[in-house]
């Protein structure tokens, strides 16, 4: 049976070590969090080694990105490269709301499905996806 390959990305604005910007806080799929080594490998396909170092310089977060578009483009390339069929993006605030409003794992998945911005790896952005939180 072929399982759908889905990537969930949580992002948001964060002031981190005196740098305020747009960061990715976590990539995860059904196996759990994507390893940072994997991310570094993918980054090296699209960015120069200096840019990779800059993007990976904060141990817990990936970024900062200059704009939401840049972040979304990166996620899309990453998802394509890692053969994900689609990815869902949520702000950290939205994800925290998902946790707050859910009683169980199923509730979180329902929230993600209903509130995240959906990006198909063939470039089509699902307009039904909502952007809330930081970029309202």
């Amino acid at each position, binding site marked *: 049976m072929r399982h759908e390959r*889905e990537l969930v990305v949580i992002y948001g604005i964060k002031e981190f070590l005196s740098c305020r910007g747009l960061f990715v806080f976590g990539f995860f799929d059904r196996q759990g969090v994507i390893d940072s080594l994997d991310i570094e490998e993918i980054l090296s396909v699209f960015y120069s080694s200096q840019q990779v170092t800059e993007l990976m310089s904060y141990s817990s977060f990936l970024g900062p990105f200059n704009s939401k578009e840049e972040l979304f483009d990166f996620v899309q390339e990453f998802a394509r490269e890692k053969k994900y069929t689609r990815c869902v993006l949520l702000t*950290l605030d939205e994800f925290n709301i998902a946790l*707050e409003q859910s*009683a169980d794992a199923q509730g979180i998945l*329902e929230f*993600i499905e209903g509130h995240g911005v959906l990006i198909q790896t063939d470039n089509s952005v699902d307009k039904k996806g909502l952007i809330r939180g930081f970029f309202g």
Partner: protein
Amino acid sequence: MKYLGVKLDLTTPVLKDDDIVFPAENWFFYWKTSSALWKSKLSSFHWSHRIVVPLYWAYHTDSGDNIDFGSLRQETNLLKLCQVAEEVEKELILAVMIGPAPFLPNGGVPSFLAKDYSKNEMDFMQCFFDSSYQLNKMYSFFSPPVFRAFTNFVLKLGEYLKKERINVDVWGIESGFFEDGLFKSTFFDNSRVFEESFSRFVRAKTSQERSKIHSPEEEDAFRNEFREEIRGLYLKAAEDALSSHWEGLFRYNLLGADSRQFFGRIYQNEDPLAYTKSIFSAFQQNILSSSVLLSSTVKEGPFKIILDKLVQGIHLENYLKEDSYDDSLPSFVFQRFIDFIHFKTPGKEFFFHQNLYELGILPFFYTYYQGSLLFSEFTLEREEEEYDKRIHFISGQNLNDSFFSFMLKIFLNGGRVLLDKTGLDRKFQKKLQVFFLENELDIEQISFQTSLLNAQLGEGRLLIFDGSEVVRFSDQQKHAFWQRLIETFDFLHPKIIGGDDLNIIWLKRFPRSNELQYEEIRRVFICNQTSYKKKCSLKFSKNFVALKVLDEIHSTVQVAQGELSVELMPSGSLFIDFGVFS
């Protein structure tokens, strides 16, 4: 039904009754069953006669003023619970949660206090899935009303135990999990309430102290100091209120609680391999593990063997019987060859480990002596301890007066100390010289790849090296350096060749009456949780006799002179016993 490609069951999974009241490793959830059934439940538990009972704070109070221990609901009657346990010859250990408990709704906090969510270092709300994927949300323990209510709860508990003359030990339990090999407590908080409390803490400092904060790192250190201080207040409140019953604080590694696993568990995906790694990290730091957050369906194969035989059968049992008289047969304890002792500085543990890697001592031990390492913290309580043959590794970088005295005490009591003098304060360098002169010690200066200083006093040994030189060696030189150095400590132990990727742990016990020809019995557990066939060999000297192979699962052993060749299929595991002569 499918969400995000995941097939979800619409029916609630049915848990077995035993899994509900005995969810994991000797834990009994008294609130999950009627008090009328306590007797039959406790008597049906055959794993051990010692049972840990976590106290569910919220179950005993609705408003915080009245704490119920049986006057309103029989299910809160701890006297009855202890009496029932005595009747069925079980020994109960009550456990008070110091900080949020991931296996309880609201982290165990009564609902009237569940107002401010706790957040982790990434600003995610601290939530954990229980064994049926229900989401337990944690609330901040940095809120003053939570502290006041907690103090009242432990005070009333102490009075109740005294009034009813309940003779029972009480533990404090701090829940946490392992991430990147380090224990992280659920007490950690980064929420708005924490920030407010922290601001008050900073304001209360003198302007001179405040002026020390120049960088984000220094502010982090300040935050850690504040966290430790508040955690200490909770601990002190429990200790004072329960003084005659208090046995100390025990940290618990809850499998499935780390944030990496959390995301996988959203999809109901479990990773026993990661849990096993977490258990072995906990063994190395002598921290108990619990599978309370995992469903019984996850506990299968080698993972179940590890939980049953090592976590529950050895680690927990040794903790539980530590202070009680025990006339049973000698049982296994963990074998430790080296104890990397570090001074507890929150947030700095990572650098301590990194330094050990750079010195090459950790890779050396991981290559040949897996499953026999200990990482421990120096605390002021760490006064009395048995100075066995293990090496005590101490880094000179963050010694203070009491840690320095502790190090000399180990040496004077016949212990073995390996001191890295890099970063050793001048004050301590001078103190060491005076110590050598006062005790008229023969100091041997040895030149091997670098200059070493060796002091001996009876059985005691203090070997000082300069780590700043060792880190500059090539990998080969580091390996040769540690091999030679460790050889001089004369410890006899089988070397495991090719054990990478395998989970290995060494145990030891005194011989029983039919084994008196041996000085000690050692047992190794080897487990292959990879999806490949693995081979390793154990090379041992004439002082060792391979006695028996136990519980072989998908594994074979071939014996040759002074060597055992072990082949393990995926999910294979086995125990091997050795008799040791001097």
